[in-house]
């Protein structure tokens, strides 16, 4: 691994850690050592359902199918 790649890898790792701890709340972006590193923050269940505009009735139908 080249030196620049090693540095980038370490910064990305730190960014992921800070996202996990909730320091960086903006979507997928963390500022570590004055560098902007993009890391996709995992969505919550609510965000996934909202993004597709899935209605509560569709969620109920899905729950029924799971528990059948």
């Amino acid at each position, binding site marked *: 691994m080249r030196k620049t790649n090693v540095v980038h890898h370490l910064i990305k790792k730190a960014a*992921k850690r800070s996202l996990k701890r909730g320091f960086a709340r903006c979507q997928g972006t963390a500022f570590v050592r004055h560098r902007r590193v993009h890391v996709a923050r995992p969505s919550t269940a609510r965000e996934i359902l909202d993004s597709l*505009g899935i209605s509560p009735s*569709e969620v109920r139908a*899905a729950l029924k199918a*799971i528990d059948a």
Partner: protein
Amino acid sequence: MAPALSRFATGRADPTAVFLNVPFDDQYEPLFIALIAALTSIGRKPWCVLELPEHGQGRLIRILDHIKACQVSLHDLSRVSSPPRFNMPFELGLAYAQKRYLRSARKHSIVLLESVCHRLTRTLSDMAGFDPAIHSNSPRRAILCVLDSLGTGATDPAVPDVYRMWKQLMKAARQLKMTAGQDDIYSRSLFRKLVAASTELSVRYGFIPR
């Protein structure tokens, strides 16, 4: 305006949305469900062309809008039997062109899937340099491909756990098809219910927070 549609208006790509460019046929159904299970287990939003209703604007426009709204697109190029399916390579070309020529799509990532090793160099030699993930038509391998390509590392779920979730999701898909009286899951309403079921299972398995 629904959040999914407001993305198109603003022109910003959702960093967790993944556009699925896959064949919609019966044999592919277990793999399609495996892709949805794997994506929701890592907190990604599976998007596909099925979810927007056709209002006379044409399928191609909907595909372009979807690719633009997602930061990642997943293209399965394994359907090369006779007659060949040209949809997937065509949509891959659209995604690549957007990434290359649209300023707003510069960060777009392309993930390629194939079922056979080294076949892509013969079937689509223009994509030389892009290594496809090989799923060998196995749902377990498909889950591994998604987690390998899009996972973030330490917090990702284990493949056997997601595979167990996929088995449960397959049962739910059968139940949903029976209730709707349909032969396959490739419809708007069933796709949405399938994503809802997969999201709920991901929460129950502890992969993502509610």
